[in-house]
């Protein structure tokens, strides 16, 4: 990757559906992916709920967006991390996570990468800029 490519991180810390932050935040990620930037996304705190498989907003009468997460890898957003501690507090395991795309060669489903909380601070420190939604 060229040296002048800027590293941009997104943190997703809010729950999905209760507010539009996660939904409109996703729109930013998709647009930004089209530019020359090295994008990573960290889901932590209530943001981990956004990655839960099987969300269905039909009965609420609002648009869902879990399907869009399912093709994040196609948008070349593949550095997707989820905080283990946040998941554990919320009774979630890796099995609960939705698929974010599939491997080009093997067609194996790709899931977000589970990380430890103490990895997040150092990851933040090496970014050019960080957005929170």
């Amino acid at each position, binding site marked *: 990757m060229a040296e002048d490519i800027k590293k941009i991180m997104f943190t997703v810390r809010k729950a999905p559906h209760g*507010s*539009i932050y996660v939904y409109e935040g996703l729109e930013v990620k998709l647009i930004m992916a089209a530019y020359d930037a090295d994008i990573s996304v960290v889901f932590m705190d209530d943001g981990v709920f956004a990655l839960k498989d099987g969300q269905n907003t039909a009965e*609420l009468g*609002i*648009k869902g967006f879990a399907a869009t997460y399912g093709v994040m890898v196609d948008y070349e957003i593949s550095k997707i991390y989820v905080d283990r501690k946040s998941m554990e507090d919320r009774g979630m395991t890796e099995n609960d996570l939705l698929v974010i795309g599939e491997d080009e060669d093997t067609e194996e489903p790709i899931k977000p990468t589970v990380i430890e909380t103490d990895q997040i601070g150092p990851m933040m420190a090496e970014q050019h800029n960080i957005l929170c939604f």
Partner: protein
Amino acid sequence: MKLAVLVLEGPYNHEASDSAYNFIQAALEKGHEIRGIFFYHDGVYNVTKLMEPPQDDRHIANRWSELGAKGIDIVVCIAAAKRRGIVDDVLVPNVRISGLGQLTMMAIEADRLVTFGD
């Protein structure tokens, strides 16, 4: 029962507006009387006709306007609306701007007042 509903958050941004709408629909189906719907705080943004959501999404202002067309009194607080740029010119039909006295009357006259907000 005679029901009043207070909505404190703006459309799309918070689920409150959707919860209120779904709740009111269910109350109407059960034959309850809606004494009124009052928009306060950012709730006043719910009824601007200028909103243009994506085609495949719900149109929140039009939904409220349709409830107003059924004869439900839908009131937007004038003080909260002025501060936020919601004026008569931008309202969807069947909705009116008035004072907090209207909320007071709803709170007194309705058997139940249910609040949706953040």
